[in-house]
Each structure stands twice: as structure tokens, then as C-alpha cells.
């Protein structure tokens, strides 16, 4: 068998369309997923009482269900299950929702690890100095926790980006869908998947570099202080 990459040329726009979809899915998921995770972490922070306790328990349930079921099953549940329950949902929205919920749950756990490693004394000192719960969470708990778990966070976002390949199963036109589509047309599986593998690799490396760049800005205080 000889490799013939010229057979891919007519499909350049297909690959481009898939790449664009994968990229924006990743960007939106990263932003929304981390936001969701922060909200979950805030709601579950400390030892909540009363109605906050119920919310905290519910969120704990969401995190456990999401982290202990396969992503593709979550995706199928949203895409095939919701319309059956009378909630129409498009393939793209289902994919986005599944990815955000998935990243949110994993990141919430990663953040919790960071928050748990923050000394309770710091938290208490902040409250004693007159900071509100939100202020103390934001400045004293969240930012140091973030900086501590930042490497794990980067990895998790890359895992979600790579995991987005699964959304091709419900006909979302992402990079993997593009590869499968081309392969079903020109039967040049090896060439197509080689190219797409390289694109995913570049995306992952690019994403990591971008995160590290942002991290250096966000957590500049650590470089001088604790490093």
C-alpha cells in the first residue's frame, strides 16, 4: 500500500470545517465548564447548612454521576433521551451541553482538591479580617487553589478537547466526523487519520501553551512568592 495524500486535497474544506467546530466547541466548553466548576466548588465549599446543604448534596450527586458514567452514554442520553421526554435538542447543543457538564464535574473535583489543601486557618483569618464569604472564597481560597491545581486543570481541558471526538457519533461535524466522512468517500483511512492525528496533536500542544501563557499572567504572584 502506498500513501497518497493528494487524495485528501479535494477534502481540505471538510477538514477545515471539522477543525473549526472542534476548536469552538473546545473554547466554549473550557470557558463554560470552568465557570460551572467554580460555581459548584463555591456552593460546596466549607460546611454548608440549611438549604445550602441540600444544594451542596445535589451538586455532589451531579459530580458523582458525571464522573462515574461514560461520556458517550451521557451524550446519547442527552441527544436521544431528551427529545423522547419532549425536550427538543439539536446535535450541536447536546454535544456542547454534554462536554460542559463533563468538564464542569471533573474540574469541580480538581478544584475541591486545591481548596481542601488551603489551610482552614487562612479562611478563618480572612473572615476575621472582615472579608465576606464571597470575598474570602475569591481572594483567599480560589486563586491559590487554582494556581495549585492549574497543571491538572490544563490536562483536564485537553482530555475534554480530545474526548470531543466522540460527538461525531451524533452527527456533529467535528474533526473526527470530517475524518470519518472523508474515509467513507475515498477509502484512504490511513492518510486521513494520520493527518487528523497530527491536527489533534497540534491542537493539544497549542492548548497547553495557551493555558501556560494565561497561567503565567494569572498567577504571577506565585513566581516571586512561593516558587
Amino acid at each position, binding site marked *: 500500500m502506498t500513501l497518497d495524500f493528494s487524495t485528501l486535497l479535494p477534502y481540505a474544506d471538510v477538514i477545515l470545517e471539522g477543525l473549526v467546530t472542534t476548536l469552538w466547541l473546545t473554547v466554549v466548553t473550557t470557558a463554560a465548564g470552568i465557570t460551572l466548576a467554580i460555581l459548584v466548588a463555591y456552593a460546596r465549599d466549607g460546611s454548608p447548612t440549611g438549604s445550602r446543604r441540600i444544594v451542596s448534596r445535589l451538586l455532589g450527586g451531579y459530580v458523582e454521576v458525571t464522573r462515574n458514567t461514560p461520556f458517550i452514554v451521557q451524550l446519547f442520553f442527552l*441527544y*436521544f*433521551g431528551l*427529545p*423522547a421526554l419532549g425536550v*427538543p435538542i439539536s*446535535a450541536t447543543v447536546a454535544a456542547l451541553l454534554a462536554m460542559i457538564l463533563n468538564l464542569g464535574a471533573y474540574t469541580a473535583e480538581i478544584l475541591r482538591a486545591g481548596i481542601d489543601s488551603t489551610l482552614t486557618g487562612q479562611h478563618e483569618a480572612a473572615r476575621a479580617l472582615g472579608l465576606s464569604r464571597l470575598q474570602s472564597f475569591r481572594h483567599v481560597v480560589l486563586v491559590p487553589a487554582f494556581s495549585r491545581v492549574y497543571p491538572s486543570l490544563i490536562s483536564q481541558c485537553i482530555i475534554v478537547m480530545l474526548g470531543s471526538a466522540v460527538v*461525531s*457519533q*451524533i*452527527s456533529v461535524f467535528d474533526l473526527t*466526523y470530517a475524518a*470519518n*466522512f472523508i*474515509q*467513507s*468517500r475515498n477509502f484512504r483511512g490511513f492518510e486521513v487519520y494520520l493527518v487528523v492525528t497530527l491536527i489533534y496533536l497540534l491542537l493539544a500542544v497549542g492548548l497547553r501553551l495557551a493555558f501556560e501563557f494565561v497561567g503565567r499572567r494569572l498567577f504571577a504572584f506565585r513566581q516571586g512568592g512561593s516558587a
Partner: protein
Amino acid sequence: MFAFAKNRFSRQLVLALCCTVAAGLAAVSAQASDLETIEQRGTLRVAVPQDFPPFGSVGTDLQPQGYDIDMAHYLADQMDVDLKLVTVTSANRIPFLQTDKVDLVISSLGKNPERAAVIDFTDAYAPFFLGVFGTPEADAIDDASGLSGKTIGVTRGSVEDMELSDLAPSDTTIQRFEDNATTISAFLSGQVSYIATGNVVAAQIAERNTERAPTMVFQIKNSPCYIGLAQDNGALKARVNALIEQAKQDGTLESMSQQWFHTALPDDLSS
């Protein structure tokens, strides 16, 4: 002692070879039964499938059932002979005919030049096509241009995917799924109102989900089934063709199509 054994072995070998050659010759020279032979014998031998619903499968009573089996019964009844069903696989249905083990092959047989070189075909008797199917309440569409602006599900890389990709207008959203099961799920869950698939697959969906039974919108590729018979068997072919025509006229094929495919018999059976 040794010489005797060797001798006996050689004789057995020669005998075995002779038997093989004779069997081979007998197979080659097997004369197909013509119409007269069948009527004298009083039995019509028909090869039918048992693993390809709704054409032929084994029912809960362990008896073969399906469109092909009904067709075989119809022919035998009309010819006033007994029916002997011989279940075959798709690989051995033509050899069964060539070696005169059966008189007819009614086994969802499509026509192609390779087959036409070794056996003969009657007229088409059963619908086998790729088409666009919709929900009962979906908008009626006459042809591919009617798909403009619509969303349609199809299994990626299938023949219907290729045909549909050529036919559909550019503003049609074609959602391609990994396999038949996912495409069917998308249709049944309401994600798509139209799918492109084979009439056999559509019949299977209709069998299990009567409230969302796919109804035929238009055909995209037609390759109906023919009854296979031995070559140079003109009288039998003429008789079967006449009976197929009769079955079309008296509504037998229509009711068989309704029963097994849950859809009307297409107007044009021949490709």
C-alpha cells in the same frame, strides 16, 4: 502384509478418485427440471431464505415465514402442486439451482451480469430499494429537490449516503450517523423526521414502532428481487412470469407488501 496394505490403500485411493470424478460429472450434467417434470412430480421445490427478515425467517412456530415464503406458496397453489421449501443461505442459493436441488430460487435475489451468466431470471416479484422515508406526519415530498431546507439522517458511508449526497440540494442538512442502529435511534427519538435507508430496514422499524412507522417518500435507488431459475427453461419461466403478473393484478403482491414491508408495493417493480 505391508505390500497388501499398500495395495489395498492404492485401490481405495483409485476408487475414491473415481467416485469424486463421477460425482463431479453428475453435478455438472444435472439436468434442470422443466415445467413438465415438476407437474409430473407434483412438487415444486423452492429455495428460500431463513435468515433475512422480512423476506424469510423462522417464526415462533419454527416454520419459515416471510414475503419469499408467501410467494412460494402462491406459485405452488396456482400451479396446483405441493410445495417443498429448501432453506438456503445467500452464498449457496445459486449452487442449489445449478445442481437441480431446487426448481426456483425465491430468496431476495438481485439481478446482476455475473448471475445472469449462469442462471435465468423471471420478472421482478419483490421490492428492494433505497429510499427516503419520513414520519407519517412529515411533509409530503415528490423528489430530491423537495428535501431543500430539511434535515435527513443517513448511515455514513452507506450506498444511500452516497446516492443522497449526490441527489440532495445544497441546503439540505444531511446528518450522518455511525451505523444503522444510531440512524434508526435518531429517527425514532425525533431528532430527524426523514431518513434514507433500505425498505427492509424501514420495515424492521415499522414492525417494532407502529406509532412512528417510516413511510416511503420517494425512491433513490431501485434494485428489485427476481426469482431465479435454471437457464433454457422457457416454459417454467413463462408460467412463473404469468403468475407474477396475475399476483400483481389480483392484489396478492400488494397485500404481501403491506404485511411484510408495512408499505404499499411500488408502482414500478422493475429497475
